[in-house]
């Protein structure tokens, strides 16, 4: 099913991508409109992370087009994609464990040379008190949830128009999962479009405007968060009945 491209901030059409001899994405089409929270769900190994990596220029697509803000970014490097306004928080730990929280945030602003970096870091620390109290501690000593928040804060320092987050709730306790989703909602309310991948489909769909189900390298279902939550097939296979 072709995605409706009008007004889309990010648009993938018939994207084919993979690693050496394995083909993981076999024609994925989806669109993310400015201001939305869009969620991708799917079984383990369906290719959700590969999809985000392909958008971010870490995996080169073999076929298809990826457009961001009207420009084809399908063959751009990660650095170029980042500079165009796409932030990415990969699955698993993605910070600098031996650097302090503050230094990690400074790394988030690595590409920036303007004078407002300090102010932005202070704003983020004020916004995430759990990071502020640990600003001098090595990131590796933080809890999993705190590190997840730190990684989102790192990505925010470049003020991305689109933030892609891969399994933000993985391995977190329920209280922390709430905080992480609340944070994503707040980031979205401030104007950042969000594309996330989640195993915790129920929770993720309930906060998303729209969702896609990825199955065997293709997008199978698409709909509003509510529609997918109510869809009997999706319920049976991805929401545990």
């Amino acid at each position, binding site marked *: 099913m072709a995605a409706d491209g009008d007004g889309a901030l990010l648009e993938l059409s018939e994207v084919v991508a993979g690693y050496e001899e394995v083909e993981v994405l076999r024609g994925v089409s989806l669109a993310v409109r400015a201001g939305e929270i869009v969620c991708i769900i799917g079984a383990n190994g369906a290719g959700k992370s590969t999809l985000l990596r392909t958008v971010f220029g870490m995996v080169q697509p073999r076929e298809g087009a990826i457009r961001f803000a009207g420009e084809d970014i399908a063959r751009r490097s*990660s*650095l170029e994609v980042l500079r165009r306004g796409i*932030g990415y928080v990969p699955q698993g730990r*993605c910070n*600098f*464990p*031996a650097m302090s929280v503050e230094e990690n945030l400074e*790394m988030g602003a*690595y590409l920036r040379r303007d004078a407002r970096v300090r102010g932005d870091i202070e704003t983020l620390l004020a916004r995430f008190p759990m990071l502020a109290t640990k600003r001098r501690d090595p990131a590796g000593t933080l809890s999993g949830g705190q590190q997840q928040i730190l990684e989102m804060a*790192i990505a925010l320092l470049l003020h991305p128009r689109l933030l892609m987050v891969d399994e933000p709730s993985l391995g977190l306790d329920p209280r922390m999962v709430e905080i992480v989703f609340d944070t994503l909602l707040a980031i979205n309310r401030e104007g950042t479009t969000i594309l996330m991948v989640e195993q915790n489909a129920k929770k993720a769909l309930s906060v998303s405007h729209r969702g896609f189900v990825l199955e065997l390298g293709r997008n199978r279902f698409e709909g509003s968060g509510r529609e997918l939550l109510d869809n009997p097939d999706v319920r049976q296979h991805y929401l545990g009945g």
Partner: protein
Amino acid sequence: MLHGLTLGSMYAMVAAGLALMLGVARLINFAHGEFFMLGAYAFWLGYSELGLPYPVAALLAPAVMVLFGIAYQRTVIRAILPRSWHVQLIATLATSIVLTNLAIIVLGTQPKEVPTALSSRILDVGGFRMAWQRLLVLLAALVIFWGLHRFVARTRTGRAMRAMSQNREACAVVGVDVQRVTMVTFALSAALAALAAALVSPLFNIFPDMGTVLTLKAFAAVVAGGFGYVNGAIAASFLIGLTEALAGSYVSYAYKDAIAFLMMIAVLLWRPQGLFGRRTGI
């Protein structure tokens, strides 16, 4: 004692570069001793053949080797970095062998001596006699390590080097140009080896296969120092240099080269994480 500190300074400058490359690029450069050997010949060329003053020749060597380090990174390293460690081992060892043999063909096997004014002038402090050059080696090494520490701790590129040694993927996410930082790391490591060569060459002979044993000793220091932890490698190098000098004068000169490896084995048995325990990054 002072001889041990001279050796330690030399090993430390070579080992620091090896540790940097290991930490940042996750690669063991088995051709690193040859960086030292080429640096020594560059110094010999500048000082003995071209008749440049010592400070100029001593800076010419690292300048030449920076270019060499960049060329090496752009060709050999860029090609092997995404490959398995077997490929990396064979490619860097092959580079080592090729460079040694090229040096034999071009420069001959006859050792070169490069005595300077400072290497023959003796400083006498209350009966304790030493060549000025040894003092220079030690002082220069301290300044160089201080500078290296500042560079890695304070500069944007130094920070990117630490970042790469801690999390590669996170580097891509924040926009670190991984290729450029790898190149700077190789340039810096080559410069360190060449500086070491320019500092100790007035005291020792220069010959084409001097790099082989040096690589292995520096590698022993890197392993004992925590496998990529730069300050650990420096400390272990001084330990090796001092032990070697003591063993050379009190035990047997013939066994002195075995000291580094005995120490490495001892450290690994006693503390498998290296002298300074488990660490993340350079």
